[in-house]
């Protein structure tokens, strides 16, 4: 019995949000090739009572409003790519992405709370939402400042053929 065939790829069955579910969610805004720098992408599709991303954003690019169960709405044109929301999100559901970082290369900055930490220059395996390794990635830098309260943010480039699939890396 191959478990994967039985696995409906729905969030509430597989544990990972599927691309289909993301594409049905208006608040999921994936920046296209026109963006010249990485901006925040929020994979928060359930109405849970939570708004630290809104309060953390220094430029007000994320809006939730009074009812804190409203899904966060990002305006990528305002977002400066500072990454504060990435560390502030209790659900670690935010990362920064840029589709055309370089020739055939996309860029991601994702939250990473494990040891050992990768280092700039490392070649790692980028992972999709199911924890499967999909392609190689090269670590640009790893940021761990007190402001991020012990959440490290790993910046890496990877093959832009996997632009939307990649969300994290396989742990070391």
């Amino acid at each position, binding site marked *: *019995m191959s*478990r994967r065939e039985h696995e409906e790829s729905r*969030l*509430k*069955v*597989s*544990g*990972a*949000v599927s691309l289909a579910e993301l594409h049905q969610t208006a608040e999921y805004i994936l920046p296209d090739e026109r963006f010249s720098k990485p901006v925040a992408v929020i*994979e*928060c*599709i*359930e*109405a*849970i*009572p*939570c*708004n*630290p991303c809104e*309060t*953390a954003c220094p430029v007000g690019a994320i809006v939730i409003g009074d*009812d*804190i*169960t409203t899904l966060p709405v990002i305006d990528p044109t305002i977002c400066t790519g500072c990454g504060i929301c990435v560390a*502030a*999100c*209790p*659900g*670690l*559901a935010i990362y920064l992405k840029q589709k055309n970082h370089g020739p055939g290369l996309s860029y991601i900055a994702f939250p990473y*709370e*494990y*040891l050992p930490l990768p280092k700039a220059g490392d070649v790692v395996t980028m*992972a*999709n*939402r*199911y*924890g*499967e390794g999909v392609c190689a990635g090269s670590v640009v830098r790893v940021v761990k400042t007190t402001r991020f*309260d*012990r959440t490290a943010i790993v910046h890496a480039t990877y093959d832009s053929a996997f632009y939307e699939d990649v*969300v*994290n890396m*396989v*742990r070391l």
Partner: protein
Amino acid sequence: MKRVQREIVVIGSGPAGLCAAIEAAQAGAGVLLLDENAKPGGQLFKQIHKFFGSADHRAGVRGLDIGVQLLKQAEDLNIEVWLNSEACGIFDQNSVWVVRDKQHSITVEAQRIIIATGAVENSINFPGWTLPGVMGAGAAQTMINVNRVLPGHRVLMVGSGNVGVIVSYQLLQAGAQVVAIVEAAPTLGGYGVHTAKVRRAGVPFYASHTVKEARGTDHVKSAVLVNLDSNWQPIDGSEFEVEVDTICIATGLTPAVELAFGSGCTPVNSPALGGLVPVHDAGMKSSNESIYVAGDVCGVEEASTAMEEGRIAGLCAAHSLSYLDEAAFSRRFEQLQHNVNALRSGMFGQRRREAKESIVSSYGVHR
């Protein structure tokens, strides 16, 4: 037995008890805070993840840091704290029998008592469930986050609610491997953002599965998982074995009500909140005029709701001793009601919100 008098005695210094003590002390009341452990803070110091909610709830701050902040606040208010002190009983409405350091007894006559004794993990039973290596998810969380000791290296998590999924994530952070998370229901219970964290870390979920058996002689060696059909019956032949040395059970919690019910507080059954809970009004007052309840003891929710309920209980207990004028009291009371309602808003909080509303509205009937 030696007797001492206090205005407000808070039993339990977890998120609810700590906040109750702080709120009551800020209102001006004399507070004695009891805890049976050597260190206060209850589950806060096991919760190394960032909390949900809004800025009012200190969202985005890690549970253990909230614990440090609250302890500092309690210290600044020089709240009297008795650690290693077990509240063993409440007699004639307001006398608390306390055993200190397992050696001496003392009776504290309190004008108001706030019971914040939390909850205890539920069990599920399967052959081999008493083997060393099978434990509550909370026990594993205590071991890794407080004692910094790994209870095992290959873990099976039973239950996909927020506790099961968050503890799985924390086991990964601690260096263990989580082999699988099984969930008897057809869909997973925890927040999607939590399940996504562990799923992208490679942990598979098995919905509609449960543990048929744990194997091992002196310790867990493996677990046999089985697929369940639509009415939760095992499907013969669907069994498969996973090599694990630890099985964590995260199948909900039950309010620790022995003190409350032993003192005569009226119970009401509320499945959405974990079973039998003491009836209480919006100000967290139980059926007994001088006893208040707060946190998981009167409804299993989260540490953030426990903190808000604790503040409400502390505020109302102090006000019932005529601290704070009417205007100051009602302004603060409204604010705290808003805070706790915000945490129960949305689809995830609906069952709990309705359960709390029915308890509060039935308060008059039960008295």
